């Protein structure tokens, strides 16, 4: 065990933990907005797949990673719009409509991939950029300030989301709609519009989360490449108590355990790799158990809104 925890190894685990947290952060921060407004979007995984495919395809065809990123965001927006229509306007049971959206996204991304690309190809994705000055700090510079653009974006998103949710009129409306839509409606807040906005924003961010996989983390597209990451992102929102900083803490914890698990495998320590891969999921269940009663969930979460109903 001793040789597992040398300094370079620890630094490596922290570095890859931060990198691995990227897709979870985008997806879970987006989902935080949706849930704070009262909509449980369980279709994040399907949206991520559509984002991952669209981003990869466009980047491949245009040779421009930023066009790919834009395409992923647009695909996410469309998926978010579909979820809004079904869950907000048509008031569908949210746990189930999310399953529908997942199947739809899984099927469509696979179909498009088979028709347009066929085989697995990789591209040169976003490369690490060392930040001037900060990047020169010994150790810390390597761990924190030598990442690709999408990693920086993900971590900047956290304080930004926190600010928007807690310090802006829009954020106040989102929280009001999620706590008590009837009261918000009486005060002239357009509940439907707010929920459409948050779910679509969540869609855009989930699309970018998918692109962060296919354009920065793995640099290729594969059928069902998210393998349930979107569900983890939804769980992280619960775990983080519906607060951006809490969500970030959860995403980092999950990713560090994941990175540790990968190192354990590389080092060939005597734990079967499949058992090690289980650890993050078991951890998530334990985390949900611990946060189950304590966290204050938005009062109107999963409850559709209809005027004049109490």
């Amino acid at each position: 065990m001793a040789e597992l925890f040398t300094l370079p190894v620890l630094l490596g685990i922290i570095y890859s933990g931060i990198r691995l947290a990227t897709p979870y952060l985008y997806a879970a921060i987006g989902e935080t907005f949706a849930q704070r407004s009262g909509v449980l979007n369980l279709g994040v995984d399907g949206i991520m797949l559509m984002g991952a495919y669209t981003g990869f395809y466009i980047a491949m065809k245009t040779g421009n990673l930023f066009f790919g990123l834009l395409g992923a965001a647009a695909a996410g927006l469309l998926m978010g719009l579909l979820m809004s229509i079904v869950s907000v306007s048509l008031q569908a049971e949210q746990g189930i409509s999310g399953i529908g959206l997942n199947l739809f996204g899984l099927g469509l991304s696979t179909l498009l991939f088979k028709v347009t690309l066929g085989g697995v190809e990789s591209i040169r994705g976003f490369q690490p950029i060392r930040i001037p000055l900060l990047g020169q700090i010994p150790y810390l510079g390597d761990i924190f300030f030598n990442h690709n653009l999408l990693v920086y974006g993900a971590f900047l998103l956290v304080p930004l989301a926190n600010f928007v949710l807690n310090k802006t009129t829009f954020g106040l409306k989102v929280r009001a709609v999620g706590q008590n839509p009837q009261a918000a409606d009486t005060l002239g807040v357009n509940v439907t519009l707010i929920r459409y906005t948050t779910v679509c924003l969540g869609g855009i961010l989930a699309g970018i989360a998918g692109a962060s996989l296919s354009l920065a983390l793995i640099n290729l597209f594969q059928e069902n490449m998210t393998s349930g990451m979107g569900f983890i992102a939804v769980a992280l929102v619960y775990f983080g108590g519906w607060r951006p900083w809490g969500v970030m803490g959860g995403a980092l914890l999950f990713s560090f355990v994941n990175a540790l698990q990968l190192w354990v495998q590389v080092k060939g320590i005597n734990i079967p790799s499949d058992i090690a891969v289980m650890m993050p999921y078991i951890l998530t269940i334990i985390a949900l158990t611990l946060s189950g009663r304590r966290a204050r969930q938005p009062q109107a979460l999963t409850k559709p809104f209809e005027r004049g109903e109490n």
Partner: protein
Amino acid sequence: MPPKTEYSRLLNRTIEALLPLLAVPVALLIGAVMIYALGVNPFQAYGTLFQGAFGNISGFTQSLVKATPLLLVGLGVTIAFRGGVINIGGEGQLIVGALAATAFSIGFSDLPRIILLPLTLLIAALSGAVWGGVPGVLKARLGVNEILSTVMMNAIALQLSNYLLRGPMIDPAEIERGTQIAQSDLLPQAAWLTRLMPRTLLHSGAILALIMAVLVYIFLWRTTIGYRIRAVGLNPDAARYAGIPVRFYQALSLILGGAFAGLAGGVEVAGVHHRMIEGLSGGYGFSGIVAALFGKLHPLGAVPASVLFGGLLVGADRMQRATQVPSALITVILGLVVLFVVSSEIWARRRARRRETRG
């Protein structure tokens, strides 16, 4: 009351009943547009699909073989949803059931068939019940959201299966040959379900699933426990007021849901593959949800729904071979069916509300 209102009410009710049924034709229509966009004639593609699924004995029996696990998973989903809990863990429960059935029947292979086969299936159901019971108890005791915990249990089951099939449970012949394919040894013949028709895979598990559908119907509508499960699902507050321990029945519906998915896993190994293989579940855990929803969460409605979707899955492979339209199209259609069915419920709810306010 003038007869005209009576008539329009009847019309309303008919529309309400038929609306969810439109989900499949509309989803197929959207699929047709996609097929057309791929440069393939939709009539030809769907022609091969339905011909392959229902047009001949070999296709039709294959559809029934696929419908069997769909129905069993769908029954479990039906019980859970009727109890007001959402079970997305069918995939994991099925895998665990299949693993347990395999391990048990290989371990006790010298038992006579009349004991071994029922016990194997029972063990499968019990393991699925345990796998569904963990989220159930966590929800009842600690208020853990069952949607999320069942999803995590899926991931854990998948890794458990990968580990067992590459390590402790791998077929010794695979190690000898050095091929190392991740699959278990064959089940003893005494644990195989009877094949019903020569040169097809159709097995007695299909009949078992059908019997189970009837039993679940009787259970939910003719027994006290079933009545309480439905009461908890319809209105937990009212049920609590009536003295029903709501949390207990929520956990119970997740446990029973898991048992049926676990049984589906046992039936798959004992009826189709005769061993545990990687990728055994093939998404049944999710397509079973679609079958349950399209069957209007009624055990007997799930029967035709499972046959239909089993057929679509079989036909999709034929369509892919004949027309190069990827079989993933069926996943798109399944997703759309779910979205349409849950969206169409708004009309039923609106009508119920109008009735309420009228007094």
